[in-house]
């Protein structure tokens, strides 16, 4: 700051922005749209960043990221995201990472014993469900497209977005 590189007011303004409007809402809206619009779902799974930009989030994409890859959960495949080397995270769609995602416990265990870890977090997956762990330590960021929960047929897109949790898009929760 003394060198004039950064003004303290600008720092405070950015902190405020993070606290107020950067969160998992954009990811939740993308998920809800994918559940209700199969063409959008296909585009989202093909290449995440352009699809998410369709929702009007283009101004806040993370410049250091080469691609946003969205992985779809099914009855037989469960995806979960980690970054073992630091704490890479899809900021553009999920906001800042939660503390547990950055913790040594999560970073060390998610690649070695994901089933046990997920079970401890309340998600018991039968052995016939393949677990795919995405160690996103480089220029690609990952988000999980959770399965649409049963008995959600009568919800509209906004109501659906409201039930999509951050943790389901990281892959430590099923809806």
């Amino acid at each position, binding site marked *: 700051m003394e*060198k004039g*590189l*950064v003004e303290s007011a*600008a*720092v*405070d303004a*950015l*902190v405020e922005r*993070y*606290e107020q409007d950067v969160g998992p809402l954009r990811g939740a809206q993308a998920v809800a749209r994918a559940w209700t619009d199969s063409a959008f779902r296909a585009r989202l799974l093909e290449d995440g960043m352009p699809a998410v930009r369709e929702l009007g989030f283009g101004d806040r994409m993370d*410049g*250091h*990221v*080469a*691609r946003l*890859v969205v992985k779809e959960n099914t009855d037989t495949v469960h995806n979960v995201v980690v970054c*073992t*080397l*630091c*704490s890479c995270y899809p900021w553009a769609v999920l*906001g*800042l990472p*939660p*503390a*547990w995602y*950055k*913790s*040594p*416990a*999560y*970073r*060390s*265990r998610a*690649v*070695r*014993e*994901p*089933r*046990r*870890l997920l079970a*401890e*977090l309340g998600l018991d997956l039968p*052995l*016939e*469900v*393949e*677990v*795919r*762990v*995405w*160690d*996103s*330590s*480089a*220029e*690609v960021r990952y988000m999980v497209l959770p399965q649409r929960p049963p008995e959600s047929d009568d919800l509209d897109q906004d109501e659906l977005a409201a039930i999509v949790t951050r*943790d389901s898009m990281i892959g*430590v929760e099923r809806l």
Partner: protein
Amino acid sequence: MNGIHDMGGMHGFGPVDRRPDEALFPEAWQGRVCALAGYAMSAGLANIDAFRHAIERMPPDRYLADGYYGRWLYALETLARERLADGLQPESPEDGASVVREVDVEPLFSVGDAVCTWNRHPEGHTRLPGYARNRRGVVAGVHPACVYPDTNADGRGESPQHLYTVAFDDAELWGEEAEGGTTVYIDLFEPYLETIR
């Protein structure tokens, strides 16, 4: 480098402490460090790879004790000390700059190729985690070529490289202790990979 940051597979950290409704920045200084880091790098203090490497160079006990934004603060202080000691000599500003680069050569590998990771232990920055060295996997994705963090982190230039997602069977990574029915996918740059003949 084989540092404390390379946590994949380590034992001893206990259960994951997931708390609902935690504050984004439990202490005000953490938010300021987060924002300051973004501005400092935009202003050319360092590139993202040098920033990550500065964190990795922390003494291991401090790495564990200081927490996430504490590490960021340490990296900012380290880089400021190193880069500004003799007057400001910033790198070119990279505000929102993409890391994707055009390269003249075609990717060596395609989806489905069997590959083995190299068994190297560089002192500098690398994106090949220790648990995946000298391991066999299958190319599952080919991404746009990107700035090579290994050289970009310490001033040796961008030397862009092709980037792949490689799938590893958990038994290949963890042997008899593998849980089974799990695949670990890691994004790896082309120099880390060799063809299995």
